[in-house]
């Protein structure tokens, strides 16, 4: 068994997951052909920075399940492709996974646009995609299971926290984001929510910057001025991956302390902090459904698995990795329950599937294809980890169709 593990892992690391030779497989597995798991994460280009860790997580889980005797008595095999942060290439690779490699399930995508790009392919060919990243909602495909947060599972509780006494009682909010659909939609929802809480539009600043924006001097200075109008101010950041390092550096250097202007981020996790000196940022916040620092038996198991697999003490875990982990376990349970990998049967079996997640809660897949998730607010610590300062008492059901978007009333159903 360990042989198989080692070989498949090495092969996967070599990048030849697709062409893994059969002879290494011992009699531990039944006669059936291997179950194929597609991995559709960018390994090069701008998104590689975030997505490679998810590739590693899926490979780790494949390893894990083979170590437990596979699934349905069959070996599980990963098919890794590189869509290279190129959206049309995502669609092409999705088609290739489904039509050429005939994968049974796919774990993949990070950005919304990559998901939008592959969605028609998965629907046309009736594939199954697990999407592990928090997103703007407004979607519900029967071929996708969304294991990341919908806006109500992340954004709204975070802003509620900022406005509470513990969060500093903010009455003025600066919404900073990268100019793409997730921040735009999230901020639209937040604006409606803030208005409903009695915060006027004059007390909301909305600013968008391009991807990879690196010169934050002007915007941070503007936020400082915005904060200097005599009301407690907070920053809500939907700034994407790459741009965060220069943003936080500028925040720290311009002396914006969490005591004065706290910021809460929805896209900054342990991976992003690994590239920043966090000492000047202690007290700034992030909202997620999982932190690496969570104390729970399931997280211990997850961390042990990860450390054993990746063998690099510097590599951290984060929320999308947990969502991948949970999604994979849930899929494996559903396959076992359905007794087949057939997409329709597995889909039915997925509904109501429960997993004890590393976040310390038991998560359930609902018929809206979204997970119920707990919300946690964490403070940045000097060691690059988050300390949970607030969390919901239990998991929250996803509202992927936000009640704060009036057009959802006219939505076509089914």
């Amino acid at each position: 068994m360990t042989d198989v593990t080692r070989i498949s892992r090495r092969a996967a690391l070599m990048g030849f997951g697709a062409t893994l030779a059969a002879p290494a497989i011992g009699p531990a597995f039944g006669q059936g052909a291997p179950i194929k798991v597609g991995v559709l994460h960018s390994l090069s280009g701008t998104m590689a920075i975030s997505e490679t860790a998810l590739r590693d997580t899926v490979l780790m889980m494949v390893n894990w399940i083979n170590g437990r005797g596979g699934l349905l008595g069959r070996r599980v095999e990963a098919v890794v492709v590189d869509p290279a942060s190129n959206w049309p290439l995502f669609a092409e690779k999705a088609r290739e996974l489904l039509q050429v490699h005939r994968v049974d399930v796919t774990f993949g995508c990070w950005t919304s646009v990559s998901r939008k790009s592959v969605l028609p392919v998965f629907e046309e060919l009736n594939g199954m995609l697990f999407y592990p990243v928090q997103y703007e909602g407004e979607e519900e495909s029967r071929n996708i299971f969304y294991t990341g947060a919908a806006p109500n599972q992340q954004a709204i509780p975070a802003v509620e926290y900022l406005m509470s006494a513990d969060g500093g009682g903010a009455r003025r909010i600066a919404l900073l984001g990268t100019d793409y659909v997730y921040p735009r939609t999230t901020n639209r929802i937040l604006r409606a929510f803030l208005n409903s809480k009695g915060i006027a539009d004059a007390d909301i600043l909305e600013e968008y910057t391009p991807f990879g924006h690196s010169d934050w001097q002007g915007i941070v200075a503007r936020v400082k001025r915005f904060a200097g109008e005599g009301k407690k101010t907070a920053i809500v950041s939907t700034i994407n991956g790459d741009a965060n390092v220069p943003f936080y550096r500028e925040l720290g250097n311009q002396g914006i302390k969490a005591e004065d202007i706290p910021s809460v981020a929805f896209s900054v996790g342990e991976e992003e902090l690994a590239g920043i000196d966090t000492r000047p940022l202690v007290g700034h916040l992030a909202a997620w459904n999982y932190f690496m620092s969570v104390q729970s038996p399931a997280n211990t198991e997850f961390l042990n698995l990860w450390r054993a697999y990746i063998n690099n003490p510097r590599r951290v875990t984060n929320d999308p990795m947990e969502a991948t982990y949970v999604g994979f376990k849930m899929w494996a349970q559903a396959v076992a329950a359905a007794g087949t990998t057939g997409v329709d049967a597995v889909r039915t079996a997925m509904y109501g599937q429960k997993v004890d997640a590393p976040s310390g809660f038991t998560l359930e897949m609902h018929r809206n294809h979204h997970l119920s998730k707990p919300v946690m607010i964490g403070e940045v610590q000097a060691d690059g980890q988050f300390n949970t300062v607030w969390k919901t008492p239990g998991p929250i059901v996803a509202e992927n169709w936000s009640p704060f978007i009036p057009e959802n009333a006219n939505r076509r159903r089914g």
Partner: protein
Amino acid sequence: MSATTLDAAPSRLRLGLRAGMIGAVCLLAAFPVLNQLPETHALHVSDFLVSVSGKWICYAILALSLDLAWGYAGILSLGHGAFFALGGYAMGMHLMRLIGPRGVYGHPVLPDFMVFLGYRELPWYWLGFDSFAFAMLMVLLVPGMLALVLGWLCFRSRITGVYLSIITQAMTYALMLAFFRNDMGFGGNNGFTDFKELLGMPLNTGAARATLFYASLVSLVVCYLLCRWMTATKYGRVLTAIRDAESRVRFLGYDVTRHKLFAFVASAMMAGLAGALYVPQVGIINPGEFSPGNSIEAVVWVAVGGRGTLVGAVLGAFSVNGLKTWLTSAAPDLWLFVLGGLFVAVTLFLPKGLIGLLQGRGK
């Protein structure tokens, strides 16, 4: 024609190439038919291969257009991806309008992204795109107009060589940044997706794919013939002359600006057409298509195939993209080394590209 006494070897090569080309086109044309064979049949062509080769054909048209500008007129555009993307956007706008009330929010006119960004009515520049004819016109006109304006400014000021390349690169970069803005009304980073139909055909069927495939193949053949015709006439010789000694051509009394502009605009329109055919086949158009890297890649296809020969450009587009499709699955961590190494090797050892290799063997 002046070619009266061509010696035998290149003409045999030319015949061979021509036969190869016709054979390749026939083979491609047979793809959708072979696709209908049962999967176990030896000649079966998979759905994936059909759809991916439809995409390559569009790239080949882009490569042709670039070759006309670069290989013949000496205009190395590092922004041809912009024309491709603009054609794609024009087609995308048509496809978005055709979704009609079938969008998520059921709005009769506005595309989904406009609904949730809070648009009340269609921006004026979206009007007319519900008509296929108008959209097709825009597919050619928008890239054409951009090329006309940019080309006129540059060629008139006699900006050539590296300077021109960098200006075209800045152009596509500026367009990319602009299109990324959600306020532009083109869907921002997400661009357009989830198309439903074109000319009454639902897009997610094999029949639609076959139709688009044939439309692309016919366009490729037509564009090739057009380029061939242009380059075989005296106009083509003027272009070649401009490429090699621009100022000398002026002293012969040719208005170089007009000639270059003509080629550049024609080339941009062809690139726009390629983009328009590409979008319904890949199902998405977004500002990433404007990224400078894409344009450079297109230049690489032409260089790998052999610039200054039309067949070379087509060959380059097919071979580089074929390789990329294969390697991103077969060696997802290492493919950049293979591709990067290929570019290095071609520039160093095959200055005339793959076609040069064939010519070398022909002699």
